[in-house]
């Protein structure tokens, strides 16, 4: 159930599912997301799920807040509808030129490089949402001892393929972008493909991701 629905400006609904971040709340958000998308409510232009919120944007020329709110309140939610989730392995190279913030993490977490990598690799991470930049997955949860804040000053350019860490989350920079997450490695895999219009994202909400460490030469030869 949605805890409360309020307006975000004059052309979006802000559906609040709670304050915490966990799989259970996020699964509800995703179920609502799928149900809203399926219902084809007139005037809805975008539906954006996140950890515990769902934002429904609409075209103010054809509808308004009151009408969409009513539609959402009476919407049939298909709780049975099981989403088919994938498990995806992401190869990551952590050589020095890629692990830009490993020293910062060593200090912040009081762990050495080997311990950090051991706690990071070969674990299952859940995809809560995608976005910020096209296709970027927000994955969790990191080991309790792996949680660091964002950089004090964000980078102007984070390289494409970078793997970032912040708080209980980890992400993948699908293309070069500004960003403030702690970078520990880089994947040669293309995670977003705008030319595949039906399925541009390799990773979607609900999917499971496992990071696998690769060597520099495996990274270089990845596309051969």
């Amino acid at each position: 159930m949605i805890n409360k629905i309020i307006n975000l400006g004059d052309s979006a609904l802000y559906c609040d599912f709670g304050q915490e971040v966990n799989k259970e709340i996020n699964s509800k958000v995703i179920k609502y997301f799928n149900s809203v998308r399926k219902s084809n409510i007139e005037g809805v232009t975008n539906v954006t799920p996140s950890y515990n919120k769902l934002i429904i944007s609409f075209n103010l020329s054809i509808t308004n807040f009151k009408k969409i709110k009513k539609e959402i309140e009476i919407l049939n939610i298909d709780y049975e509808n099981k989403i088919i989730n994938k498990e995806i392995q992401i190869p990551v190279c952590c050589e020095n030129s890629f692990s830009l913030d490993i020293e910062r993490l060593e200090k912040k977490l009081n762990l050495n490089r080997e311990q950090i990598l051991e706690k990071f690799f070969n674990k299952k991470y859940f995809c809560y949402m995608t976005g910020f930049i096209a296709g970027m997955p927000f994955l969790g949860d990191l080991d309790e001892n792996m949680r660091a804040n964002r950089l004090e000053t964000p980078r102007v350019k984070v390289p494409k393929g970078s793997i970032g860490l912040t708080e209980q989350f980890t992400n993948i920079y699908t293309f070069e972008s500004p960003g403030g997450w702690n970078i520990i490695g880089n994947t040669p895999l293309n995670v977003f493909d705008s030319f595949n219009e039906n399925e541009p994202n390799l990773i979607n909400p609900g999917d499971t991701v496992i990071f696998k460490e690769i060597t520099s030469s495996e990274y270089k030869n990845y596309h051969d």
Partner: protein
Amino acid sequence: MINSYFELIRSGINTTYQDKGRENLYHIGVPYSGAMDNRNFLIANKLVNNNLNAPVLEFAYQGPHLKYKGDKISIAITGDVMFKIIKNGLENTGNCYESYQIESGDEIDIISTNKSIYGYLAIGGKIDIKYQWKSCSINTKAKIGSNNGNKLESNQTIKLLNINSNKDKKKIDYINSKVENIRVIKGTNFNYFSDEGIKNFFEKKFMVSKLSDRMGMRLQGNKIDNIVNTNIKSEGLIKGVIQVPPDGNPIIMLSDHGTIGGYPKIGVVASVDYDRLVQITPGSKIKFTEIQLTDAETLFKLYEMDTDNLLSQI
């Protein structure tokens, strides 16, 4: 037909193809994009007898200098734009909101958007460009849209697939009005800010920073103090959202914005003021006034009726 094309002698500072943009992709991280100033985009297309959602060239500050080769074609420029049309070496100053017949060898030199940011050039015909998710709109940050997601470069050509038959001169009397006063609906984290911060937000003026672009408008002014938390759990954004990062300087999300953000939202710009907001130049001052949801809805309807009325005069 047809081998008609424009050659870009000079591309201009930030010239892109834009249409209405793309919907239903926020959840994968792709924003609307589309023409920043929707009203001027629509008027430009109507003046050359195009479909209202046809691609146009959007330019910022300094526009392109183009040379035409081909069959007679009509063009129109909208916004607050200084431009010249050069025929047989003779320069004539052009007027916005008026269509012109262009012949082979003619040049259009778009010099400046004066005291605004965005202007539009509509070409009466179908431009040969690629679409992604049913839109040609270029998002240079995500490399999405026509022209491989890049802004246009000098020496490039704009090829036409067909030309509208349109010999009549079309024009309207319209002045691109300027505002400094932007109406804002309270945001979902309004109560995160101190009384003093809220007072600053609605009573003091903010200066538009040079770091503004199609993604966002950064503002500088009296610090807006956060007394709850300077971060929230990341959640969806829409265009017009005003986020306040820890440094207390607001950022307004514009058409190419990131789809998810983790800074508290103090307000959202009313849709009625969006077209005029995006035209406010760096260095100018803006002031926010609070508006209630129902008033914002009514004013938007009136704004749309006004736009329809302008279009029907063409």
